[in-house]
């Protein structure tokens, strides 16, 4: 057998959390399916309650599962190799998230460069323009749709610009928190991490304010306002959901920092949360350019 020293890889014996999580996802899917299907019907459904039960169960599952993992980590069961597995797993998860956003950005660029001009008769689509909607004028943002729905453009200055600055700043504070952790400066770690969370929450708050502007009678920018409203709300909405998730991750990490977890060499959860935070930040920059400015 091998004479070289090796670290043994911790394989948990068994766990009931995954099956709890599977039931939770099942409840979420059934609940959401029922809720959405009965959305426009008069009698309404019970789906919302199942959905809520599923979400609660997922939270319970995550809490229990991560407690297990944290306890194992704190009791020194994990090797360097295990740490690597977690890191690579998180990196590929973030990559899959990038691809999810790619689908929506792809839809936005397709609409802007192909389908809207084609509806206006560009390329070999003169007959499409002439026969379907002769009055239609192709512009971006598409403020008057072919079927005549009107809306207004969300400007990039004001709230969106402030939000951009907030998120970029939060990426810097997240990095400073990481540097503080590496120097084992717990006080600065808490300050920078707390500030990052605060910036995230303010961002989310301002995003809600912006949505309320959009949904006002003045702007009439709805999810149903044609492809501009669709891409605007779906992209910023999914981004906002990811910021929410990132903020929750950071809060959990913050609570663990308060409990004295993490050392300069053992801080996977901290780094994972901060990678995720940088990722939502980068998505926002792309989004700010293609949804708001250009």
């Amino acid at each position, binding site marked *: 057998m091998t004479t070289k020293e090796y670290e043994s890889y911790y394989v948990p014996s068994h766990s*009931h959390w995954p099956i709890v999580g599977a039931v939770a996802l099942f409840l979420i899917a059934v609940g959401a399916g029922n809720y959405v299907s009965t959305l426009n019907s008069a009698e309404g459904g019970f789906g919302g309650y199942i959905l809520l039960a599923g979400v609660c169960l997922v939270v319970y599952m995550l809490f229990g599962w991560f407690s297990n993992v944290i306890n194992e980590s704190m009791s020194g069961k994990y090797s360097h190799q295990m740490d690597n597995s*977690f890191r690579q797993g998180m990196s590929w998860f973030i990559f899959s998230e990038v691809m999810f956003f790619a689908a929506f950005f792809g839809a936005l660029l397709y609409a802007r460069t192909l389908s809207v001009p084609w509806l206006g008769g560009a390329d070999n689509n003169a007959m499409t323009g002439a026969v379907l909607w002769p009055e239609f004028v192709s512009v971006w943002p598409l403020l008057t749709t072919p079927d005549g729905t009107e809306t207004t453009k969300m400007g990039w200055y004001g709230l969106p610009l402030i939000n951009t600055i907030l998120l970029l700043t939060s990426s810097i504070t997240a990095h400073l928190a990481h540097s503080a952790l590496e120097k084992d400066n717990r006080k600065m770690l808490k300050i920078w991490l707390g500030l990052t969370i605060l910036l995230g929450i303010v961002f989310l708050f301002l995003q809600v304010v912006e949505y309320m502007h959009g949904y006002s009678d003045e702007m009439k920018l709805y999810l149903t306002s044609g492809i501009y409203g669709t891409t605007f709300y779906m992209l910023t909405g999914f981004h906002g959901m990811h910021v929410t998730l990132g903020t929750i991750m950071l809060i959990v990490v913050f609570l663990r920092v308060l409990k004295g977890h993490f050392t300069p060499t053992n801080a996977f959860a901290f780094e994972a949360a901060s990678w995720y935070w940088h990722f939502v930040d980068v998505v926002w920059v792309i989004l700010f350019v293609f949804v708001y400015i250009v």
Partner: protein
Amino acid sequence: MTTDVIEQDSHDEHHGDHKLKGIKRWLYTTNHKDIGTLYLWFAFIMLLIGGALAMVIRAELFQPGLQIVDPDFFNQLTTVHGLIMVFGAIMPAFTGFANWMIPMMVGAPDMALPRMNNWSFWILPFAFAILLSTFFMESGAPNFGWTFYAPLSTTYSNGSTAFFVFAVHIMGISSIMGAINIVVTIMNMRAPGMTYMKMPLFVWTFFITAYLLIAVMPILAGVVTMLLTDTYFGTSFFDAAGGGDPVLFQHIFWFFGHPEVYIMILPAFGIVSTIIPAFARKQLFGYSSMVYATASIAILSFIVWAHHMFTTGMPLFGELFFMYCTMLIAVPTGVKVFNWVATMWRGSMSFETPMLFSIAFVILFTIGGFSGLMLALTPVDFQYHDTYFVVAHFHYVLVTGSLFSIYAGAYFWLPKWTGHMYNETLAKWHFWCSLISVNLLFFPMHFLGLAGMPRRIPDYALQFADFNKWVSIGGFAFGLTQLIFLAVVIKCIRGGEKAPAKPWDGAEGLEWTVPSPAPYHTFSTPPKIED
């Protein structure tokens, strides 16, 4: 590559992870072998359900006219048949192989993230329970084809669309987690000395497939989400009246869908590349060219998606671009077929069932590949599009390709999994009946398609009657034949001749250095790999 023979790990009891008893063992398990077994059984059950749906389809098409089912239910059958076979049978079967074999082949103690591994599996039965439950809903199951093109799936869909969407979401989550586990296991858990270019080709193909999965399953999640919001929340992604475009759906779907078809064939290449050298008793011809060919196919798969859309009125440049890129895929695929044949060339061949299925794979998959090449030609595709020629093409690739490789792999590793040799006579019956019936089933479909019979219709013109009759007979025969496989597997689990550690004398790889059946934990200590 030579390997030390590994003593059976005597440290099992020190793990403190004795097997749980009964159902809890399977629900709570973190063991890659248990999870692999679950995946394989699940896939087989799904194959039988999907197959049963196909038999109803073939019964309806046995003769012209409407006999058994009404057209709407017929559409539900074709839709759910496709979804189940793709996401429920082929993909989970390959994930099952990955779970069972990859840790043993790279000398790892288990998959890298064992708890997540359990979660990836157990959400699948729930997802398919939701999908199948739509049959019992008032509106019926999804009826828009497994490709769920808008506006069939938006404006004209029935009441079960939301359940379909969320079921697909769960399948996607399962695939992504499974794929992340495979990638991390291969990158991080290889035994010392197992460099990338020493990995078995089987591992390489799953490695590349897992990357494809991580890259495109989120795209699928995105497109079903758009479909959901278009249907229920009034967005305009696929609605021209709001500035969107139904063709956008096809672009996004096939950007997922084309890599998806390679997700279903690359692991098959890996299995066949393991089996042919074993029974030809020769090294795999051109190992590194096989690795590069697999990678090339994976990369090309991202720039060929619109060959599914030649008839949508794309700009001419687009049609030419996608036609030539698609034809380019024939080059690395040709390299593979050449290498398999060259591996057999002057080998000391023997023809046990795994080898029979593998040879059938090489020949029949090549037929499917050639019909694919015909479909890649834009002007020709204008005629073939949405005819039975397409149905023939992808069933040759997926049934005589992917499914045959799964059978080959199952027979090859059954001794390792169960500790018993399977019944060779019965297995040969399974092979020959499958081979004859599957060709009776799918070959005439080429002629039907060339003659102009459209796919996804419950009734057809009289001139197609004869071929359809034979196709249906082939279909019933093929379906029933699969029960022989079930019998072989059950017999093999319950007993039979004891299998030695290495039952195939030409087989290579770490999995043959451990006893049969493979102990519950293998390689708690990494094996040593020498040149």
